């Protein structure tokens, strides 16, 4: 089951440049929330702060409060490794492990977490691949093919399966379909729609139709600030802020 996310006063920096200004956002459990905004407005930075990936960049740091379910992500006792295990992430460019088979790609996270039971692992791998709508295409070559031998769209679904295998509570997706063709994109969108039964999904997208199709809530970012955050419908039909309106009507961006 997914859990909700509460972000309060989140600031982020790259060296001396502040790229997020005091973000407050409450993400509903078991829903899809989209993050939109022009290039460079801090969307990626924002989702990377949610699972503490941001701080893996040299000189980058974040401050503020992020609560994912009961977990205090930036609390003093919090362990980034544990945070990242419980909050899965899918990146813009598919990044499967090229030297591993399809099976090992999906099982990678399980193995990292000390999972040894072969039979259960088989089941989890199958379940994750099915959830990611990739099972039918790869079930005959699980051990024969490498992760890199798949097509771009398949690779991205493999990455989703890999993230799902460790059973995260939240799934963060940073433009998961931006490198894909329309058919693969619609498969991924379909998948995101299915996923919200089990997970809380936060998706960054450049594509406003995509946000409108998959997300119940949408947040609009501009220059490191959250300008407006509401039901997707509201954002796209009657935005409260002029800047949001300008953006979604394509007057700038």
């Amino acid at each position, binding site marked *: 089951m997914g859990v909700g996310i509460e972000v309060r006063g989140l600031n982020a920096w*790259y060296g001396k440049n502040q790229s997020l200004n005091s973000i407050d956002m409450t993400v509903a459990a078991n829903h899809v929330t989209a993050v939109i905004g*022009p*290039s*460079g*407005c801090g969307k*990626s*930075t924002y989702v*990377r702060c949610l*699972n503490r*990936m941001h701080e*893996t*960049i*040299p000189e*980058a740091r974040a401050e503020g409060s992020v609560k994912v379910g009961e977990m205090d992500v930036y609390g003093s006792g919090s362990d980034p*490794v*544990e*945070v*990242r*295990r*419980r909050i*899965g*992430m899918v*990146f*813009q*460019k598919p*990044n*499967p*492990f*090229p*030297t*591993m088979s399809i099976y090992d790609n999906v099982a*990678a*996270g399980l193995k*990292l*977490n000390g999972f040894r039971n072969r039979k259960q692992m088989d089941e989890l791998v199958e379940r994750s691949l099915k959830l990611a709508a990739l099972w039918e295409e790869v079930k005959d070559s699980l051990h024969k093919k*490498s992760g*890199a*031998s798949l097509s771009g769209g398949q690779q991205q679904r493999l*990455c989703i399966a*890999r*993230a799902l295998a*460790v059973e995260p509570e939240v799934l963060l997706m*940073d433009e998961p379909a931006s490198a894909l063709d329309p058919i693969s994109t619609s498969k991924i969108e379909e998948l995101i729609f299915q996923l919200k039964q089990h997970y809380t999904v936060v998706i960054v997208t450049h594509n406003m139709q995509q946000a409108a199709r998959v997300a119940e809530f949408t947040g609009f970012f501009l220059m490191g600030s959250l300008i407006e955050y509401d039901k997707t419908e509201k954002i796209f039909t009657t935005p409260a802020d002029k800047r949001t309106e300008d953006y979604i009507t394509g007057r700038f961006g």
Partner: protein
Amino acid sequence: MSDSVDPMNPTEPLGQLPKPATAIPSMAQVSKERKTAASTVLQKIRTSHPRASRIPDSVFAVIILLSAISVFAIVVLVAWELIDKSRLSLHQFGIGFFYGHDWDPVAGSFGAMPFIYGTLVSSFLALLMAVPLSIGVAVYVTEMCPQRLRAIISFLVELLAAIPSVIYGLWGIFVLAPLLREYVEPFLARTLGWTGLFTGPMYGLGMLAAGIIMAIMVVPVIASITREVMTAVPQNQREAVLALGATRWEMIRMGVLRNARIGIVGGVILGLGRALGETMAVTMVIGNRPEIAKSLFAPGYTMASVIANEFTEATGDLYLSALVEIGLALFIVTLIVNALARLLVWSITGGTARVRA
């Protein structure tokens, strides 16, 4: 707003977009004259007979083929020369030369085994120490150390490669050997003496010293190549592992070393090549006694060392010919070791999967 520092896709071509924007004003300053000059040049190119001034593909193919053949020819020539010059000894001892244990120039009996053994064992010993050390250095430099230290360590490691091997030899005699004799060898004898590898008189000079000296000499080779291939592993592989909830070490193992392993094996092969052929430093510290002893404290001899040491004083044609045949043996051993290393690479990659992410 620039996208050039997007952490998710550092290699995204978008990163180059801002450039033309700043280049445009300067372009505007290009004078009209220049433009017309350029267009007349273009005109000329278009109207000239393109075939006449260009190298046809067939010529290019022949040149490339020739250079490929020349490599092959050099190998064959070297082999032929070695066989030709060792004819006398080949006749006298036949194939038995390669496994003969005797090396007695006075009595006129020659066998290459002690040298083959010495070369292989000292090189293997060197790799045993150098490989973990080099990978450690490379991992530290690429993944863990502060930016400023990085350049310094890389420089020092590369400096190691530039030191002449005579200096290593001297260092081996005056620093390493006493150290081994006084402290290391007694300690090894006490703790690991039961293995039989660390027994007998402790001279300091011997197989162990040769292994250590060579290890120091091949570390820069392996470390710099390993560092190179590790840097080439895309950042998104590291992020993929981290995002699954991996510790730093797991990230390095799964996201970096695993992807870089073929390149690392390549570096080890190059290092091994250097170790097999290393002459000067080894000659100075290995003890130069053509014996096969189990203990690593004992002195030994390598193929390269015996050729260097005895070539000038070789009296008699058979002696000389035997030394050339040692050279032939070294040549063959090198070939075999390299072939085995290739096989290793193939078995790792399963013959297909190439690292390309």
